[in-house]
């Protein structure tokens, strides 16, 4: 069973899913899951064997011969795609059913399969034209998935913003691939490091893929889109779709030569995205918006790794570059897994309570024990804490940076700041997820909607369990995944092939295992001890206040207040306060929300300026035919000048 056949099966499964999506959800579910499994097996086979699969039939699409190839990098990303795709598919079969969304569910299933199929195609296309086609189609599929709830204007606006941003990216990729084809003379993609004249194209790719990946100043579309999409869609968008941007960067930095400054720029963007992403996240009160901003943060971490890997590659010493790259790639997986887990968790909260507003939730652990504990697991992972997977990848990146420093190489100074920024990011992420878990799941319900809720069924639970298990596995036995990382790195840069394991992953794994075991044992032991000593229940210590209510709990806003205060300069939070005045204050309230600064202070003003220009220009079409003829004459004159001006020879 070669990868080819498996991929064929997968394709057939997904296409069959598209057709069965409207008629029978069951068939769709089966076909899509089968497809996901097939992709998974194919990718694993490739990574295990290490031999790339290459397929060049001679049928032509759009004037170009089809050329599919599955190498280390493709397989690496395909695995993530298959896992998240499968999980999301199963999840949606309970989360977005025909019963509760009769209008949007069937088409949603079709678009979903279209999304998976085309993302897969992007990953295996080795022809620029087909890459571009699949890329744009998956972008459009994602648009229709984001706007599943078209009745809501916010969802429409979010969708359009996404579409517009993606089209900007598309234009840049248009230029990128067209120039590539024009220079290289063919649409065929492949290693062409020797063509040093191609290096400047990197900047086009950076913007094009960067918008999709949600790098900091280009992330404007990301929060609203991820917040308003159905949760399984948010999961795949945040887990996989933005990784397609990373894939593009990895792919083409591997294949094409890059300018000298490329690595530095990528790393710098990474630092900015990481710190500011989490800062913005802290300012959010909307559960899914918050998670969306964390995607920006984690993309930043990935870019830090990738950037330093590029610097290393540019300076010929692959030693710490290897670590940084491995960290970045592993973080691609990790972020995909725990972010999907978190979004699915958020989905089940939304499913149960119907609100994403954190200040109305609280104490959900009673009603949603599974969701709560799995969400907590994901939170621990995304905060980069041992013994889970998030720490492993960040640790690899750290090692890369520290080695770069102790190597006193060219990147040492940059690495110092990157390492400190990474530390900051970790601590901020911890703060942020303490806030989320505490406010949403712990304490007491803040509003009646949070009181009468029900846990999700097994079809929503199972995907979360699978993702959680994956997080734990990578955390406890990272060594198992090293071969995949090595193959992918080798595909990125042949020099990195057969490099010996540069980090003591085995020891780390063992340590994590011991830690996990001890934590569980200690937990049980302490609980037994508590039981043995006897337990009595009473209200929370209220400092003697007579009538404490759940509304008095610390809210998300007040929790993050200290830190958001430090970032006021960029967050620009909007505060509306009526503070208590007199001795017996009548009404007092305080409201704060953090807008999307880049969008509201940079993009929207520019857009409105363009709109004003357009409105002014449109006045010229005022319906008086005399002026129309005058325009005609003007055109004539302009033409004459133009024709004579440049000399007629």
């Amino acid at each position, binding site marked *: 069973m070669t990868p080819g056949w498996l991929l064929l099966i997968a394709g057939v499964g997904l296409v069959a899913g598209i057709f069965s999506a409207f008629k029978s959800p069951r068939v769709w579910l089966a076909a899509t899951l089968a497809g996901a499994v097939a992709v998974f097996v194919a990718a694993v086979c490739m990574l295990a064997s290490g031999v790339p699969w290459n397929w060049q039939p001679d049928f032509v699409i759009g004037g170009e011969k089809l050329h599919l190839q599955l190498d280390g990098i493709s397989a690496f990303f395909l695995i993530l795609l298959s896992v998240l795709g499968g999980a999301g598919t199963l999840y949606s079969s309970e989360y977005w059913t025909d019963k509760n969304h009769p209008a949007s569910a069937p088409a949603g299933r079709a678009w979903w399969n279209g999304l998976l199929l085309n993302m897969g195609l992007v990953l295996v296309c080795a022809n620029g034209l087909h890459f571009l086609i699949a890329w744009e189609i998956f972008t459009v599929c994602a648009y229709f998935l984001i706007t599943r709830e078209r009745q809501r204007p916010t969802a429409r606006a979010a969708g359009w913003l996404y579409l517009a941003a993606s089209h900007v990216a598309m234009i840049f990729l248009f230029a990128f691939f067209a120039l590539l084809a024009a220079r290289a003379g063919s649409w065929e993609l492949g290693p062409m490091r020797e063509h040093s004249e191609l290096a400047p194209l990197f900047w086009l790719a950076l913007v094009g893929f960067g918008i999709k990946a949600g790098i900091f100043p280009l992330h404007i579309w990301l929060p609203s889109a991820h917040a308003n999409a159905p949760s399984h869609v948010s999961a795949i968008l945040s887990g996989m779709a933005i990784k397609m941007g990373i894939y593009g960067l990895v792919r083409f930095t591997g294949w094409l030569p890059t300018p000298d400054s490329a690595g530095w720029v990528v790393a710098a963007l990474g630092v900015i995205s990481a710190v500011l992403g989490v800062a913005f996240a802290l300012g959010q009160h909307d559960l899914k918006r918050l998670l969306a901003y964390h995607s920006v943060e984690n993309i930043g971490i990935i870019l830090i790794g990738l950037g330093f890997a590029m610097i290393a590659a540019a300076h010929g010493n692959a030693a710490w570059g290897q670590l940084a790259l491995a960290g970045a790639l592993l973080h691609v997986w990790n972020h995909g897994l725990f972010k999907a887990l978190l979004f699915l968790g958020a989905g089940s909260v939304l499913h149960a309570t119907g609100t994403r507003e954190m200040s109305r939730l609280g104490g959900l652990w009673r009603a949603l024990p599974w969701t709560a504990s799995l969400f907590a697991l994901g939170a621990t992972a995304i905060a980069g804490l041992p013994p889970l997977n998030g720490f492993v990848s960040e640790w690899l990146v750290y090692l890369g940076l520290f080695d770069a420093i102790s190597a006193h190489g060219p990147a040492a100074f940059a690495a110092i700041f990157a390492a400190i920024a990474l530390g900051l990011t970790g601590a901020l992420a911890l703060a942020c997820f303490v806030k989320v878990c505490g406010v949403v799941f712990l304490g007491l319900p803040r509003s009646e909607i949070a009181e009468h809720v029900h846990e999700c069924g097994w079809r929503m639970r199972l995907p979360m369990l699978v993702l959680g298990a994956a997080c734990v596995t990578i955390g406890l036995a990272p060594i198992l995944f090293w071969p995949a990382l090595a193959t992918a790195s080798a595909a990125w840069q042949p020099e990195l092939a057969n490099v010996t394991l540069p980090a003591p992953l085995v020891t780390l794994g063992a340590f994590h295992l011991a830690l996990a075991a001890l934590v569980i044992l200690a937990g049980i032991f302490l609980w037994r001890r508590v039981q043995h000593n006897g337990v009595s229940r009473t209200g929370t210590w209220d400092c003697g206040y007579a009538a404490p209510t759940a509304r008095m709990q610390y809210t998300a806003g007040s929790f993050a207040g200290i830190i958001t205060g430090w970032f006021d300069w960029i967050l620009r939070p909007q505060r509306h306060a009526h503070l208590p005045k007199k001795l017996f204050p009548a009404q007092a309230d305080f409201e704060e929300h953090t807008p999307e600064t880049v969008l509201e202070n940079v993009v929207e003003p520019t857009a409105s300026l363009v709109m004003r220009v357009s409105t002014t220009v449109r006045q010229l079409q005022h319906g*008086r035919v*005399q002026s129309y*003829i005058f325009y005609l004459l003007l055109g004539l004159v302009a033409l004459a000048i133009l024709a004579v001006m440049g000399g007629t020879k």
Partner: protein
Amino acid sequence: MSGTMNLLIGLAMGFSLLALASSRLPSVIRAAAFQGMILGTLPLLLEEKFHWLVVAVAIGTITVKGFIIPNLLRRALRAANIDREVEPLIGFVPSLLLGAAAIIGAAALGSELPLRPEHAKTLLVPGSFATVVCGFILLMARTKAISQVCGYLILENGIYLFGLLLINTTPLLVEAGILLDLTVAVFVIGIIVDRIQREFDTLDTRKLTSLRE
């Protein structure tokens, strides 16, 4: 030979200036009509030897430009029981000055462009350019639909004038086709004007601005 011709061409130019200057629609129409008739006679002068097709063309031109179209316009004018003032967007004096400038510019341009010896002495090129520009001015400077139609007519006259340069080389079939086209064009315009008059109960194109951004 070319003396009489130049005289006629000069006359034609005069009529286009008259059209620019005249403040009442009937006189504009008359100017256009006379100009058409004058141009109609030119082929006869241009051809050395007598050729019946040329005669046909000439007669056709005279009848169409001189009688059919003007009558059509007069009918439209009558149907539209409106004041016969021209109501210019650009005043008469400025229009006149523009026209004069156009004639001078056209003469200059005409002298720039190389001509065959047999055309060298004629005013055909400057005359046609000048007339075309005058047509443009009428089209842009007048508000009444009918005066714009006259502008279009004069424009076409100018082109016709230029066409005479080619009359003994281009096949007459083409000439005839062109002539036919122009006729039908103005004819259709006339019909539309008539319809507009009925729909809007006016021929003032300033009222025709419901289609706009």
